[in-house]
Every structure is written in structure tokens, then in C-alpha cells.
């Protein structure tokens, strides 16, 4: 699974980085970035929750296939 962030939607509220620490981070540019891709089941669950709760629905999860 790959985290893809639409930074044109990002509002930098940081909910994503609190749901998926180590995977998504809001940078100095006040935009969320994927800093790592999920590998474990726990990572995948965290990324799904970040995507579900993002107020701007700016986070897409793409299958690897």
C-alpha cells in the first residue's frame, strides 16, 4: 500500500501525523508529506485511520498491485 497526499487539499491541521506518526508529517511548508510507506499491519491500520479522518480527504491509499 502507498500513501499519496493531495497537497492542494491539505489544511495542515496535523490530524494525519497524530494518527500515523512516522508515516505522515506536516513539514515547515505547512503541508502533509508521506515520510515513509506502511509495511506492517499496524502501519496499514494507522494509514487507513489517517485517510478516513483527514478533514480534507487529502490522503489516498493506493494498492501496490
Amino acid at each position, binding site marked *: 500500500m502507498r500513501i499519496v497526499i493531495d497537497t492542494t487539499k491539505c489544511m495542515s491541521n496535523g490530524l494525519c501525523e*497524530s494518527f500515523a506518526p512516522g508515516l505522515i508529517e506536516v513539514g515547515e511548508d505547512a503541508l502533509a508529506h508521506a515520510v515513509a510507506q506502511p509495511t506492517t499491519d499496524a502501519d496499514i491500520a494507522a494509514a487507513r485511520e489517517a485517510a478516513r479522518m483527514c478533514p480534507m480527504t487529502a490522503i489516498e491509499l493506493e494498492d501496490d498491485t
Partner: protein
Amino acid sequence: MTDPAPAASCPHLEPLLALEPDAIRMSYRHWAELRDEGPVVWVDQLQCFAVIRYEEIVSVVRDPGRFSSRMPTGPKMVNETMSRLQEIMAESPEMFETLSKGLMIGSAPALLNADPPAHDRQRALVNRAFSPPRVRRMEEPIRALANQLVDTFVDRGECEFVHEFAVLLPLTIIAGALGVPDGDLATFKRWSDDFVVAIGNDHLSKDDLKRMLLSQVEFFDYFTDKIEERRAQPQDDLISDVVHAEVEGEEPLTTMEMLGMFSQFLVAGNETTTKLLASTMLRLIEDPELMATVRADRSLIPGLIEEVLRLDTPVQGLFRVADQNCELGGVEIPAGSSLWVLYASANRDDGEFAEPDVLDLGRANAKAHLAFGQGVHYCLGASLARAEGRIGIEILLDRLDDITLADDATIEYEPSYVLHGVRALPITFRAIS
């Protein structure tokens, strides 16, 4: 589709709307009764539909194109306040002139009461000021301030927690960010109090309303001057950021929009975090086991803050206006209807949260609560509020032991069916040396 909503009053909310002390303290009981009625219930007293389940609330607030934020505190407050203000304005030409000016501030929608595309343009211009990296840089000043506040009462062995800590921590931080000098803090607090007095309270006197609008006028004059100062000479503060905010392709903010934003920063930066801090302290005091657990493991504090936000939601719900006919939770909503999106109710919806009435420090989806809303209006200051809550509680636990309610303490809640928090919290403690 069910039958159209009956035009009868909603008995479940009667005690809450009458601001009975037990009802405003335990508002969750009334939301639970509403949830048993269905996902969407007509509340005749407020002339609105209450939206009470998690799923429908998220669908409404994530669809600003169909559900407008132009009347966020609800039709009853707006209509009643306006008609009574018109009476006051008719009293004298001076009063008319002064109060018209106060009303002007609210006339330019900004953030909370704005809709896309204006909202999104405003938000893009201020997001950066409250982004997580900025808030991380504010952590040290927040910590230093929390320690200074404790210094002022630690030797007494007692304090009134709300006014000596919970108000002053967020108030001083937001005042500092807005470039308000410490000498003006008391005035700043008075404005904040006066601005919120009508929210969720339909029982105000003419004098209360007059004071509210006069404060708006003072605020307007004060910040109009500040904006002009910063325009000429930028400083390292939030006002300067907003005055000089530029996003490619976006129109700069008007002075009216800026004033609207600053009044929201003032209220949102004070009221809500004050209530969060006080509710957290009250929960710790009322549950000695919780207090001991959190004392022993400070890494549990962020989870505690999320659970208090969920269970003691400071803003219980805000309003939207349906801009077209629609169906919500099986109920027909005619265009023009007001919807009361009850975040506090969603936060105890067992469809989203298992055992919703239990404070669970290990709750996996704790942050999924709607205390900060959802969608484009998601609280701009959420990261700041979380940091202030976490750091505030850390410092208090570092410095105070054996915290209990003062012997003669009676706990009263703010008289509001929208805002939720204690008015005062007299505590005793032992200083940790």
C-alpha cells in the same frame, strides 16, 4: 422515508434549554435520549433539526456546498439577539451609531461563519500560523508560562483552578500571538467573556446584550489600530502574519475579514481550551485511580486529553443551514432548514466508540472524536489546544500533589446548551518541592 417531523416541542431537551443545573452538567444524558429517537430529530424550541449520530454529522460537515455555516450559533440566537438589539438601538441615536459599528464586525463572514470559496481562501492564508511545526515551537513558551502560573499560587496550598490557571494559560498564549501586551489581558478576557455570553443561552438581559455589543466596538477599534500598526511595521506575531498573508492567486484579506478572524481567535483560543483544562482536572480529581495512573505514566496524558475532549466536549454542537432539499438519516430536510450538528452526541455514539461512556486511556480510535469538528471547518487551533492541554496537565502533575476539591466547593457549569465546562474549580493541594 419517515413521516415529516411533528411540530411538537422536544421534551428531551426541555431541561437543557432551560439551563437547569443538572441538565447542563450532564448534557450527555439528554443527547442519549435524543439518539434513541433516531438519527435526526426536529427540535421545535430551537427551530432546527438536531443531527445526533456520528455518521450523519460527518456527512453534513464534510459537505459545505450543501450545508452552509452562515449561522453557526443557530437561528434562535441570531433572531432573538437581533430583535432585542434593535430595541436597544432604538433607545437613542448614540446607541444606534455605536452598536451599528459593533454589528458590522459580524457582517463580513470569516472562517467559522464563512463558506467556500471565501472560507478556503481565508483558511489558506492563516493555516501556516497554527500548523504543527509552528505549534512545536510554541511548546517551550507554553511550558514556561504554565510554570509561572503555578508559581503564583503554589505556596498557598489552594487556588481557584479555572481563573488562576485554565483561563490564563490559553488567554496569555493567544494574546501574545495577537500582540496584545500583558497589561491589556484583563480587557482581552472581558471581551472574550462578553462575546460568548449569548451562545447557547436564550435568557439574557438587555444589559448583557448591550455589554456584548459595546465590547465588540472596543475590540473593533483596538484591533483596527493594531492592523494599521502592523501594516506599517510588521512584527513577529500572528497579526503581522495575517496582515501580510499572501497566497499566490488569492486576494489579500480585508480589514473586516481580519477583525472577524481575530475575534474568533480570541474566543476559540480562550473558552474552549479553558474548558478542556478544567474538565481534565475535574476528571482527575473525581477519579483517584485515574490520577494515580496518569501520574505514574505521563505518556498517557495525550490519550487522557483526547478522552476528555470526547466525553466533555467543550463545544457541544454548532449549526448548519441546508441550502437545498435533502434527505438525512431518513428524514426529509427542506431547503433553508437549520441543522444542529451535535458533536458531543456523536462522541458518545456506540456505532463509532465501543463503551462510549467509559474513559479509556488506551482507546484505539480516541482521536476520531468530533470535538474539533470535521471537514473544511476542522478547528484551526486543534494542534495548539492539544499542546496546551497536554503541557498544562504535565506541569500541574509535576508541581502539585494530593489535589482535591476544596471542602466548600460546589461545581457549577456555564449556563449554555452549546458550551460545556465548569465556571469555577476551587482546589487544595500539596506543593511538590
